[in-house]
């Protein structure tokens, strides 16, 4: 897969205050990428720079082979964005909002609007005022808005902010669908990590204006998660207080034991031994979350 975004040594200052320092990364076409970091890390600034709505102080960027500084309009024609606020007109219906934005993008096509409303299950509400919608419904219309002109890249800034768990999982479901069906490359900024775990192919970790780590989840796991915590649902009752055949464990409720292993390689032998003695209904690595990696990375001194 070719790179659709390439960023090299980008610097950005506002009123002489550095916001981004020496940021470099690339994004592959057709992938879903998470840009993670705390509030104020510079995530939104990166999205703005890539769209050419603000200019970098220094460095080079290429988005779809174009320079945002010179070819901003061309990039904006081919990119869709969902900003943190839904950016819709509350006094207009969902349909009118989409018609308006499609004209702004020179892509007015009632069939496309109907198709997107259907895709996001909003067709029955098309004539209702957006102001009356729930946050989740507004987000879905906002996503439809971003896809009106069939963009090649979709930028999402905190797309799940203010959503309830149901809203969050539906947005994630739609993003998967859009990526698969329309082959759109997606870059999502977020500080809420567990939502992105099943969604993204690779991650960029941003802290205080610097990319401090990047990669796919498996690579990051191997690099940062030195021990494995395995929660096993089993009928096993070890005789020893804290060890079972040399594996350290803790009792975590009825029929649940949490084992502390040195590596993933120990999982299979452990389970084999347990199965010799008792039954196993489930086993799951509980410290293999994006959140654990995020905190591990954040804790390392990169200065």
């Amino acid at each position, binding site marked *: 897969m070719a790179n659709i975004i390439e960023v090299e040594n980008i610097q950005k200052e506002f009123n002489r205050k550095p916001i981004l320092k020496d940021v470099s990364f690339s994004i592959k076409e057709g992938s879903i990428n998470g840009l993670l970091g705390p509030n104020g890390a510079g995530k939104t600034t990166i999205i703005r720079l890539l769209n050419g709505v603000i200019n970098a102080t220094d460095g080079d960027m290429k988005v779809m082979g174009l320079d945002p500084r010179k070819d901003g309009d061309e990039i904006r024609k081919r990119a869709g964005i969902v900003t943190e606020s839904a950016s*819709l*007109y509350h*006094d207009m219906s969902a349909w009118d909002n989409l018609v308006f934005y499609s004209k702004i993008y020179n892509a007015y096509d009632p069939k496309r609007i109907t198709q997107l409303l259907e895709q996001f299950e909003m067709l029955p509400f098309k004539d209702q005022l957006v102001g009356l919608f729930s946050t989740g419904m507004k987000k879905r219309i906002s996503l439809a808005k971003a896809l009106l002109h069939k963009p090649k890249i979709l930028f999402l800034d905190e797309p799940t902010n203010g959503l309830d768990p149901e809203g969050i999982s539906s947005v994630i479901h739609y993003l998967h669908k859009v990526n698969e069906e329309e082959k759109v490359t997606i870059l999502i900024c977020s500080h809420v990590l567990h939502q992105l775990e099943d969604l993204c192919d690779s991650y960029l970790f941003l802290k205080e204006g610097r990319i401090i780590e990047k990669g796919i989840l498996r690579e990051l796991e191997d690099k940062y998660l030195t021990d494995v915590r395995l929660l096993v649902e089993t009928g096993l009752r070890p005789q020893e207080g804290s060890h079972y055949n040399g594996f350290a464990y803790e009792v975590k409720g009825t029929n649940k034991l949490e084992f502390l292993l040195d590596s993933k390689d120990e999982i299979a032998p452990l389970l084999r031994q347990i199965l010799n003695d008792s039954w196993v209904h489930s086993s799951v690595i509980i410290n293999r979350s994006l959140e654990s990696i995020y905190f591990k990375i954040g804790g390392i001194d990169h200065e």
Partner: protein
Amino acid sequence: MNKTTITAIAEKDIRATFASKKIWMPMVILAVFLCIFFPAAFTYIGLHTELLNHSSEDLKKPIEQVIKNFSIEETRTTLAALPTIGEQVVYFFLNFMLTPFFLMAAIVNSMVTSSNSFAGEKERKTLESLLFSPLSVKDLFIGKVLASLIPTLLIVFSSFLLNFIVINLITYPFFKQILFLNTTWLILIFWVIPALVLFNILLNVLVSSKVKSFQEAQQFGGIMILPIVGILISQVTGLFFLSPFILLLIGGGFLLGNALLLKIITKLNDRNSLFESQIH
């Protein structure tokens, strides 16, 4: 320039103006009151009642003074030939003192819509989305200007037409001439007012794109009322009358001002500076 996007912006804003009673009602009420109801009531009272004639002693002297010194001979003769003080006052009022009322209605109405143009988008958090689109900043400005210009001129022209019908229905039996169908009025309505409204809108749109909120934008817009007050005073006191030539000059002056403002707007507002100053 992209016609589709400009039309989309203008259409959306004009729809929003006329969709909200709270916005269009005051605009229409102001124009109806200043340009139709008030002059009609004044005319009716002046011609059909003795109210103005009763207080003739107070009015007689200044009116005679004005007639005596009036620069346009034709008007002087017409005024002097009118039989009652009431008719003279009404004739004078309709021909000369009504001008600032139309200017006022035009200014206030265009201010309401134009000061909301950018500040409104910002407050609704939609400006960010517009700047993230391929829409050019120039097209955005043109769309915003049209969105203010069209409703204002629509209201001003309709008020003029209604005023023309209503007032002439009342006055024709007395004056035996059709009022407002003269060079001065036609230049005022179709030359000066559009140029002035455009100037006011450009100024307000510029201010609206620079300030942080709708309220701030309106504060600046309020300053535009001052020249109108000046014209009103000069007309009433007879300091100088707006002859067709002066009106042509005023309109031309505003057009020049418009060209200048457009230059400033395009210079001050590229996408980057608009984004950095308006979006946080």
